[in-house]
């Protein structure tokens, strides 16, 4: 889909929902990044606590799920807005 098609075919409410979902997608990514950095710092020190590390990985997993759910909502929004794209344009090369 080209960038130009989106504003032409989405209403104001859909665009604002899109912005909300993009923000909602970035939040778990930020969290995962911070959790991963915390884990690296703990592992790099000599007193890495396995219980804490375990909870970090659980949190990373939760946030990945959260991100994927939002990603699905984004797909649904794009589909419902009627924006269409040829298969070859969305396929990963």
């Amino acid at each position: 889909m080209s960038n130009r098609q989106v504003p032409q075919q989405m209403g104001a409410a859909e665009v604002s929902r899109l912005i909300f979902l993009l923000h909602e997608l970035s939040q778990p990514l930020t969290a995962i990044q911070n959790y991963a950095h915390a884990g690296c710092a703990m592992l790099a020190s000599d007193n890495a606590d396995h219980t804490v590390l375990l909870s970090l990985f659980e949190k990373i997993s939760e946030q990945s799920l959260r991100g994927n759910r939002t990603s699905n909502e984004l797909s649904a929004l794009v589909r419902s807005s009627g924006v269409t794209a040829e298969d070859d344009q969305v396929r990963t090369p």
Partner: protein
Amino acid sequence: MKSVQVVHIVDDDEAVSDSLQLFLQAAGLNTVTYSSAQDFLDAYRHEHAGCLLLDIHMPDMSGLHLQQELLAVGSTLPIIFVTGHASVSTAVQALKAGAFDFIEKPFDNLQLLGMVNRALEQDRQNRALLVQQTAVQERLQALTPRETEVLDYLLNGKATKVIALELELSHRTVEIYRANVMQKMQSRSIAHLVKMVSGFHVNPH
């Protein structure tokens, strides 16, 4: 004054604040999280040392609003704003109002850590200065009206002889006042005295 510095994290997203907390704790820093600007404001105390890591976009009270509330109560806590998307005008507004710095998501964690450490250093300096200023203020208040008058002359570079003439006192008396001023102000020299009270209003009346 040796109080423990705390990084106060204010973010309405629980995962973001929790992860920031763990990241900063792993770097050896003390942290407290708040889920809203109001929560932080309710818990705020002047004597709490540290810095504030503040999400700029939050429902109810925004980060900028909290900054204004803190300024209104005379807070000097350095604020680092965390912004979701490039909003130059908002960032400029925050910096103009005295924000320590701002960082845009996605951020580099080491860059954020460096910024937080600099903000903590700024807070240490602010507090050291405040302690010093309070001490000087107390010394100034301990002076008698006559001593304050002599201090004012000394600050204007007047010699003892001149002060004696202008106040119609004996040279010896002025020297006693001068010695009292130096002692009460805990000053080693006139130069030291001038430096100490620069920025203070010395009112001899």
